[in-house]
């Protein structure tokens, strides 16, 4: 590799054949480049009489934003093939940070397109990327790489796991786009759960997402979320969970109704296993003094004859469809 100073205007940044990293430029890098310029050389190579960037996309972007005209570069000889150059880009970044799933998919796609054998990708590169060395993982990654920039950006930013992407790929393209608009700004867990719940609901009902989203319980919430009201996400999730878990949701509602009618003394709290695997109630009370304790216990024991207690235990012991 030859070291030299290059003009930013000589770089063909449209040619992204070696780019698979997705981190955008951040303020820290901008401040650093603004203060001392780019010290660490980027890597370039010539293709069809233009300089193509191999590694250093963030540095180049930062340099442009800071109005630099030149920056240091290491040039890989033109006669080195695309695959060998990609390996440089890959390992140069590999040591620096773990890649997101989106970046892994792009790297694999490029290896594949540059004719690296499927066997070698599976045996050598999937384990390097902490992915199972299986043919089906190669297929999944190739599919992910084609999802489009907007999706890849969300997958990257929220650090999605393969299982979520796989579920997403189970939706037709138009539904994927709708889902993306719905979840784009949410946390990773919210995104995963919404996709999972819509997937299940769709399979159960046989309805398309458009019809599901129009249903009374969901329409308002999806509408609010699509307008950017992120606070609607938790309520949408609760509504979806209720649709997918009718037995437990029904029991929770009934239990909570009994607890409300029971009218417990203010410092007494009831708790139970939300999965309803256990059939016991946990009762806790607050007391700062013996007198508080006596009072709480007395007011609690005064409720014991109420029929709601029996109903509560019946609900906890419920057996049925």
């Amino acid at each position, binding site marked *: 590799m030859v070291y030299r100073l290059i003009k930013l205007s000589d770089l063909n940044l449209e040619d992204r054949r070696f780019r698979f990293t997705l981190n955008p430029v951040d303020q820290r890098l901008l401040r650093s480049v603004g203060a001392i310029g780019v010290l660490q050389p980027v890597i370039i190579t010539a293709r069809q009489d233009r300089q193509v960037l191999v590694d250093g996309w963030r540095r180049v972007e930062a340099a442009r934003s800071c109005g630099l005209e030149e920056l240091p570069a290491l040039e890989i000889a033109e006669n080195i093939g695309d695959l060998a150059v990609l390996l440089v880009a890959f390992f140069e970044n590999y040591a620096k940070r773990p890649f997101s799933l989106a970046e892994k998919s792009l790297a694999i796609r490029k290896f594949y397109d540059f004719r690296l054998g499927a066997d070698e990708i599976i045996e050598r590169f999937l384990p390097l990327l902490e992915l199972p060395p299986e043919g089906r993982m190669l297929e999944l990654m190739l599919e992910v790489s084609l999802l489009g920039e907007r999706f890849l950006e969300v997958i990257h930013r929220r650090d999605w796991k393969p299982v979520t992407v796989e579920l997403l790929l189970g939706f037709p393209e138009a539904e994927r786009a709708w889902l993306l608009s719905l979840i784009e700004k949410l946390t990773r867990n919210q995104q995963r759960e919404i996709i999972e719940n819509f997937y299940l609901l769709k399979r159960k009902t046989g309805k398309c997402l458009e019809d599901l989203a129009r249903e009374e319980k969901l329409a308002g919430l999806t509408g609010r979320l699509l307008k950017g009201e992120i606070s609607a996400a938790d309520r949408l999730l609760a509504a979806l969970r209720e649709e997918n878990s009718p037995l437990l949701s029904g029991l929770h509602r009934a239990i909570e109704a009994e607890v409300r009618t029971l009218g417990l003394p203010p410092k007494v709290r009831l708790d139970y296993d939300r999965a309803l695997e256990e059939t016991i109630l946990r009762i806790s009370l607050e007391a700062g003094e013996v007198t508080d304790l006596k009072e709480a216990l007395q007011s609690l024991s005064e409720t014991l004859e109420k029929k709601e207690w029996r109903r509560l235990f019946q609900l906890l*012991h419920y057996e049925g469809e």
Partner: protein
Amino acid sequence: MAGLRIKKVWVDRKVEKDGLTRKLLDGLAGRPVEIVDSVEAVRRFIRQHSDPVGESKQHLFITAQPSFIRPCPCTPGCLGCGYWTIDLDLNCPFDCSYCILQDYLDGQPLTVAVNREQLGSELEEFFKQRPSGITRIGTGELADSLALDELTENSVFLIERFRDRPGFWLELKSKAGLPPALLRVSPADNVVLSWSLNPQAVIASEEKGTAGLEERLRAASRAVGHGYRVGFHFDPILHYPGWHQDYERVVEAIFRLVPVEAIAWVSLGSLRFPPGLLPLARRRFPQSRIYEHEFIRSAEGKYRYPRPLRQWLYRQLAEMFAGFGAEDRLYLCMETVEVWREFYGKIKRGRQNLAFPFPWQC
């Protein structure tokens, strides 16, 4: 072996000259054979495939196992039934949508161990070390006990080892028909041939390659006719619209062909699976509806039906068995203490020892 589809046979170099290896290869004549240094070579080949699980079921690996006998791990938080397992074969040629081996075996081919003499010695040691009480032991934990039996005749080898070993109950558990070799040997009192059962509609949609319900029950009936005790496993019980009627028909069908006295035990267990199975099964069985049900994530991390529903299923099954006076043959598989307690409360049997609920056999 009907339906056994082996694309290739792989032989571990260390058993290449073994007599049983030769016999197995004769039985598999016509298939390509490759000698390898370890299972890793086979796994590597299988993993390249886009469906490694499906592929693993079509490659047979002949090898020697380092050891065979271990206690059945059950599930943390569940009441164990004191079972031991013999890992003689690994993997299974059948392809059930709910099979946890899909997630567990990670590219392991159908594996047959030929160092049976070592198993014989391990068994002798095992018999010596556990001289009193009842011990149940089976080969159906990481494989189907009889799926490859026409090829290996492992059942005959095992029956001879367990003969005259009272207190040690060998269970051969299967979804296959009855291999002819089992009818050529005389039965032993402590050997139970058992079949996992589900309604025919479930078998057709979820248990690819297995024998149909009728064939399994006829196999059980012939085994009883020959003098064997039999067992049945309702595991996994699946809940779906119309399940009650379907399972009722299965229970009725059992007692049309098999007398209560010949039944050693019947286990009940409802659908459960580790989270890793979910994406795999959805991918491999896109038509299956069983993963669309309501599940909870239990304390040990598995997905299960909610407890109220599990108890309901067990109670309904118990009532069906009670109709034939066979409710005392029932036990629960991988269930919590809470569910065991409620279950035995409901069927009103004062069992002393829930971990092995068959005092009538002691």
